[in-house]
Structures are given as C-alpha cells and as structure tokens.
C-alpha cells in the first residue's frame, strides 16, 4: 500500500512538474504566435502592417503577468480546456487532438505492443540459440536496423513500396474520398494506410527489444534455477519460456513504459514523412507554428500517457513478480 501511495505521490508531483514545464517551454521560444502566423502568410507575399494588426487581434496575444497566465493555465488544465489553436485558428485544440489521436493511438500503440512481443520472442530465441545463426541474425540484424534513422527508413519504404512498387498508399491515414467512420471498410482502409508507417516504427524499434531481452535472458539462463530445471530433465521449451524468459522479461517491462515516449518521438518523424495525420505531425506543426495552446495540450497528453503507462507497468510488474506482491 505504501508502495502504491509512494508511486502515486511521485506520479502527481511529476505530473505537476510536467504541466509547469509545458507552460514555460513555449513561452521561452522566440517570436510570438502572431509572428508565426505572419511568417506563414509571408510565404505568399509581403505582409502589411494592417494584416499584422488583424492577426494579432485574432489570436488575442497572451496578456497579464506570467504568474497570472500560469494560474489561468492551471485552471484550464484542471478543466481540461485547452483553448483555441493559434496555428489552426479558430479550431479548438481539443478538436484537433481528438481527430489526430485515434490514428496515433492505433499506429503507435499497436506497433509498440507488436515490437515488444516480437522483439522479446526473437530475443528469447537468440539467447536460447546463443552462438548460432539464430542468435547472430536477430541481434546483429536487429541492432543494425535499430540504428536506421526513423525518417530515412520511412523515406526508403515510402519510395520503394509506395511510389515504385505501388503496394501501399503514400500518404494520409485513409483514402481521401472516404470520411472517417466506424465501419469495416473504413477500418480496413485505415489499417492499409497505417501499414507503411507501422512497418517503419516496427523495424526501427524491434532491435532494442531483441537485444534487451537477449541480454536479460542470457543472465537468467546462467541462474541456478535454470540449471536445476535442466538437471531435472524439464524440456527445453519449458525451460526457455517458463524459467528463463519469464524471469528475464521483468526488467524489460520497465523499459516498456519508457519506450512509449520514445515511439511517440519517433512517430513525429515517421508521421511527418508519411503525411500521417497523427499526434506527431500535429506536434511538429504546433512547434513550428508557435501554437502554444496546442503544444501545451499535446505535451501534456504525451507526458501523461507515458506517466500512466509507467504506472501501469509498475502495477503489472507487481502482478508478474510474486516477490513484490507481499
């Protein structure tokens, strides 16, 4: 119980710090939202004084002291009201996020889980068949692919599988002529569009899991309980999975929560390349467009989801490891 309370306390404190950081970060950036809007307009020709005035009037440049803004901001956060986007004015932030979130959730969520499962299995195999090609291939291969820059892999996949081979759609999260809805055909269409970005994320995050699991597994393989199980003539598969892998997976779980943050980071680049309308793309636009409200909401969301994932992993850890269950 105390363990849980401790965790929750830390969770709340970290959350507050993240919220505050969110508030400060954008305000530290040079140039105002109006400057950003004007910069966008300026790409179609010089912008006049009057336009600036109009834009500033529209965006309602933040006023009041920093502290007052902070209070107002905290109030908004509590009410989950993130205001109106600057870059997509007058679109409310919640609407923008609401539209982008499902895609990233599906893409990143599915890929993270898939990469974890697949990577862990390959890692188990590599450790079990240590020193053979079944070890060398996933570990060296995995660590090589793992070091491909996300965007580079995306570009190559996009080019070869999308533009040359015409196997996959090249942008978007669904066909341009369909409207998002909950129907079978739409889901299939959406999955088809998610395939390439998912492949990129999968391929570039797999190696980490393989190596992490392999190393953990090699350690548990050296444990006495594994030797004892073998001495008792328990079959290879049982020893590998229920003895070595089952224990080796525990330290890797902690990494799993953290990994979510990493994949969201990676998805910025991937979504950018694939024109995938997810959170990553939105965040990039928010940063470039100096869109404080959007940026704050997104950051908060990402941080909270990583925090929650960590909390869940902690709880899961407790469930999987009887030693913490007391």
């Amino acid at each position, binding site marked *: 119980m105390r363990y849980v309370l401790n965790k929750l306390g830390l969770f709340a404190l970290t959350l507050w710090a993240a919220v505050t950081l969110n508030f400060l970060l954008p305000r530290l950036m040079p140039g105002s939202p109006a400057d950003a809007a004007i910069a966008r307009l300026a790409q179609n020709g010089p912008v006049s004084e009057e336009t600036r005035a109009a834009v500033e009037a529209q965006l309602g440049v933040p006023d009041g002291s920093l502290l007052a803004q902070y209070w107002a901001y905290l109030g908004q956060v509590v009410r989950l009201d993130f205001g109106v986007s600057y870059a997509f004015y007058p679109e409310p932030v919640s609407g923008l996020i609401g539209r982008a979130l499902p895609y990233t959730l599906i893409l990143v969520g599915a890929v993270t889980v898939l990469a974890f499962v697949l990577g862990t299995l390959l890692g188990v195999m590599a450790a079990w068949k240590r020193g053979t090609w079944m070890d060398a291939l996933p570990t060296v291969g995995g660590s090589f692919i793992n070091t491909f820059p996300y965007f580079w892999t995306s570009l190559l996949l996009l080019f070869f599988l999308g533009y040359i081979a015409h196997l996959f759609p090249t942008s978007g999260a669904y066909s341009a002529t369909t409207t998002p809805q909950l129907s079978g055909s739409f889901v299939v269409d959406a999955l088809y569009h998610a395939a390439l970005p998912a492949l990129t994320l999968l391929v570039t995050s797999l190696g980490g899991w393989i190596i992490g699991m392999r190393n953990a597994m090699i350690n548990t393989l050296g444990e*006495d309980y594994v*030797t*004892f*199980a*073998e001495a*008792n*003539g328990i079959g290879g598969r049982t020893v590998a999975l229920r003895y070595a892998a089952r*224990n080796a997976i525990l330290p890797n779980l902690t990494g799993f929560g953290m990994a979510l943050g990493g994949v969201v980071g990676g998805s910025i680049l991937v979504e950018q390349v694939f024109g995938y309308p997810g959170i990553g793309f939105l965040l990039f636009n928010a940063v470039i467009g100096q869109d404080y409200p959007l940026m704050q909401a997104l950051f908060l969301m990402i941080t909270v989801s990583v925090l929650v994932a960590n909390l869940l992993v902690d709880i899961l850890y407790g469930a*999987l490891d*009887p030693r913490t269950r007391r």
Partner: protein
Amino acid sequence: MTSTQTSAARDSAADGPILAVQDLSVVYEPVGASPTHAVREVSLEVSRGEFVGLVGESGSGKSTLGFAITGLASAPARIEGGRIVFAGRDIATMDHESLRAQRQGGFAMVLQSGMNALNPVRTIRKHFHEIFAAHGHVPRARRDARAAELVGKVSLGPDVLDRYPDQLSGGMRQRVTIALALSLEPQLMVFDEPTTALDVLVQHAVMDTIRELQASEGFTAILISHDLGVVLESAHRVLVMHDGRIVEDASSTDILTRPRHEYTRMLLSHYADPRAEVVSLPGLEDRAVLPADRADGDSEPTRAPVPSAAPVPSAASAGPELRVRGVSKAYAPPRRGLPPVRAVQDVSFTLAPGGATALVGQSGSGKSTLAKLITGIERPTEGTIEIGDVSVGDLPRRRLRDLRRTVQMVFQDPYTALNPLSTVEYTLSRAVANLTDVRRDGVRRRVRELLETVGLTPVEQYLTKLPHQLSGGQRQRVVIARALACDPRVIIADEPVSMLDVSLRAGVLSLLRELRETTGVSLLYITHDLLSARLVTDEIIVLHEGRIAEDGPTAQVMRAPRDEYTIRLLDAIPDPRRALSA
C-alpha cells in the same frame, strides 16, 4: 508406488558399477580469458547404493566434476576427454534429448546454491508438476498427492506447495530442491554442497535428512563438500580432490585413520573439537583451559616466519574499555502491520582493554547488528555504548571519523572488502593519511610497517599488488593491516575467516591472536564457528535471537555449556572422529 526398486530392476542388467568415470578432463574456455583445466584425467567408480563423499578446497574442481557426471557441463565448460559411463551408457557423448530422458530414474543433482535453484515466479507445486509433465512418470491424477508425499519426505508440510520460493527459508528451499530431485526417482544423486549457504543448525538438520533419505530410498549418493567433517559424518567412502585431480580415494575410516596424501592430512589437521581440554591446530599453539600467557611466534606452514621484533610502538599502553549497557536495537518492520525487528535486545557486556571476546550465535542472532552499533554505523534504540569516555550512541555523524581512530573493523569477506582497482599500498596509505598525523615519507614507512606486522613480507613484493593477485588469506591480512593503520584500540572482526578455505584460516586466526598479544588491542571476534572462537578469545558471549543466552570464559562455556541453545550449537559442529566412533 513407483519406487527405486522398480527402476533398479529395470537397469539390473548392468551389474557393474552404476557410474564409471575414466580419464575425464573438463576445461573451461571462457571468451577473452585463458582456459582453466578444472578437472584433469579423473577416474572413479561408484557402486550401487554407495554414499560417496567428494572433498577439496574451493576451486579444486568438485562442482565441475559433479556437473560433468550429471551431464550438465555446458559452455564455457567442455569435456576434453574421457568417458562417463552411467549404468552402462556413456553420457559424455549423448545428445540433449536422450540425456534428458535419462534424468528420470537416472541421475539427479542438487545444486550448490540451493537458495537460488527455484524459479522465483513459480510456486513449488508448479515445480513438481513440471517435472512430472516433462517425464510423464506420474499420472496426472496422482501428481498432487505425489508432490505432497515428496515434500513430506524432506520433513515439510504440504502447505509449502502453494508458496513461492521467496516465501520459504533457506533451509526449506534446500529441502524442496532435494524433494524435487527425489521426484525423479533417481538411482544416483549428486549433492553439491547442499548446506554451505545454510546456517549451522539448519545445516545439521538438512544433512540428517539426506542421510535418512539415502538409507530409506536406497539411491546412490555423491556428496560434494569442502568440509571434510560433513563428508566423513555421512559418507562410506571419500574422494579427495586437489587441483582438478583426485588425490585420494579411500573408505572413511581409512581417511581418518590412515590418510595417505599430504593434502588429506592437511585437511584433517584442521579439525578439532572445541570442547576438548586442549585445542590445537597447525600454526596455532595449544589452547588450554586457561588463557595462555605465552606468546609464541609460530606461524602457519605456508608463509614466511613473522619478523621477531614487533614494530608497534604502543604495544604496552592499555586502551579504553568498551562498555555495552542494556543495548537494544529495533529495526523498522519490513512490512506495515508487522512488529519491528528486534535485532538486539538488552545486551550488556564489557570488553576490557587488551581483552578478546567472542560473539557467537546462529545467523540472524544479532551479531553484526551489535558490531554496527559499536562502530557507530547504527544507533541503539536503547542503552549506551561507551568506549573509554566517548559515548558512541550520541556521537554526531561528523565525529564518527574520530571514532574510527579508536575502533576499527575487519570485514568478513576479504574478496569484497578491498577495492579491486586499488593497490595494497593505496588502500593502506589512504587509511594512514586520513586517520593519523603521519604524512609523506612517514606514510610510506607506516605502510611497510603494517605489512610486516601482518606478515606480508618481503614488503616490496606486495605493495603494488592488486587484490586479485593475492590469495584469500593474503587479502584478509591486507584487510587487517588496514584496520590497524591508525593503531586502533578496539578491533571488531565480523566473521573474518568464514569465507576462507580451511587451509588459510589458521594463518589469519593466529595473526589475530598475535596482534592482540603484541599490540594490546582489544578484540571483539564475531563468528558462528565455535572452534575458532575457542582459539582466539578468552571470553565468549552466545547470542540467541538478539539476547545473550550465555556468557563466560570461552573454554569454560564450551566445555560445560549451561544453556540449551549453546549445547545445540556445539552439537551441530561436524566432527569426523565423533561420527565414526559413534
């Protein structure tokens, strides 16, 4: 009931020895290090139903041999040559699957570190079920009953089946591993130091169980141990291993009465009964009922003689008295809702200047806690500890450094007490520079003096060595030298020899005794080994669950223990002679 008789009948075709090893060599070939020939050209035969002991010091290759004959040698170990014939078949050449099939009704092994031999995330019941499922020799319906029966054989109740390994004590875990091995209904069981990690009293009980099982189930047993005493108590025949070879193979009686190999003789010579009137070990002079007042510079055979002139200047000056008065220590409970851990309760004693007191008791009896209290690492919950006129319990943290000049500590494990990356000289000179007023050349001189004091001569040879280049005994001497750096008046030695091989123990013990006599330092000697307590101390305190069970002059307490707990402790000491005479 499936029993060993049926499986024995199955294999009765092979009438010869159940196990025959011929010219077996095993080599470790770790990557990035030179290979180690752990077992060299070993040949042995074991007949059905025999109880064979395998002894030898640490690193002599006992475990390696054990792993080889149970078909568990795996990378980086490699069987270099030789045959291992079990029940007529060579298992050295068997493939993985047929080896696996052999494990039921064939050979089983109980691992050295039985504490870790159970999968922490599975219940004991699952462990049994997995073995049954792997071999299919127990029908599904009978499995639970059989598991309960098996744990019953090792004197455990069926309730352990639903527990996780970490919910069992060390002794229980070791029993469970034995029960698991038994569940294979093996003809041959190899016990690799089944009791080393256990407490003295528990050790005794587990060994009893093994002996009884062997008698009742009739399997062939090989017991590996570094403790000749333990082996002689149980085995009919003893194999002595040294440096990868079997140097002696004889019946227990022969080993005890007519040891042929020099090494065996050396091992035997380190056994003595602490209850005897006169106790002596090689290198340690006789210890009569009354403390000897004769300082004898005799040293262990393996090292150069101690220089005759004791270099310590303040040998004569009497130090402060250590007074422990009504000290208790309670630790916060490990879990909410439990009572606090009372590690030490109402302990009082006095350590006179120049005196030597032993603190004995089983694991968890509060010995180390007391040491921590005296050295100021922990604060007592109640009571006072005074060293001279300093009250340790009230000392502010930053004054602890000053306390170090008076009270020093000798650590249990010389393998971890030295920074592996620091030379002997650095380790010692830091202590000198920090705790004394000696500087520069003085430091260097003092370091040399210290090395001479602990008998590491010629000094030059040791100054630049790193811990891994020293033997265990030499390391422990460096640890002692470090403790002596600032001329402390009180030395607390927490199990200073328990991690050392018997052959190295005597040297360190005699050094401790000698130091006491030459420097006049008072010694608090913490141990669970009563024999060594008898050899180095005058007074003894027996701790039991944090309380003093008995105290008095060492020889007197040992020879005529009054407390029942002390008697049990004394009984648990393996004594080869007693076992055979019984």
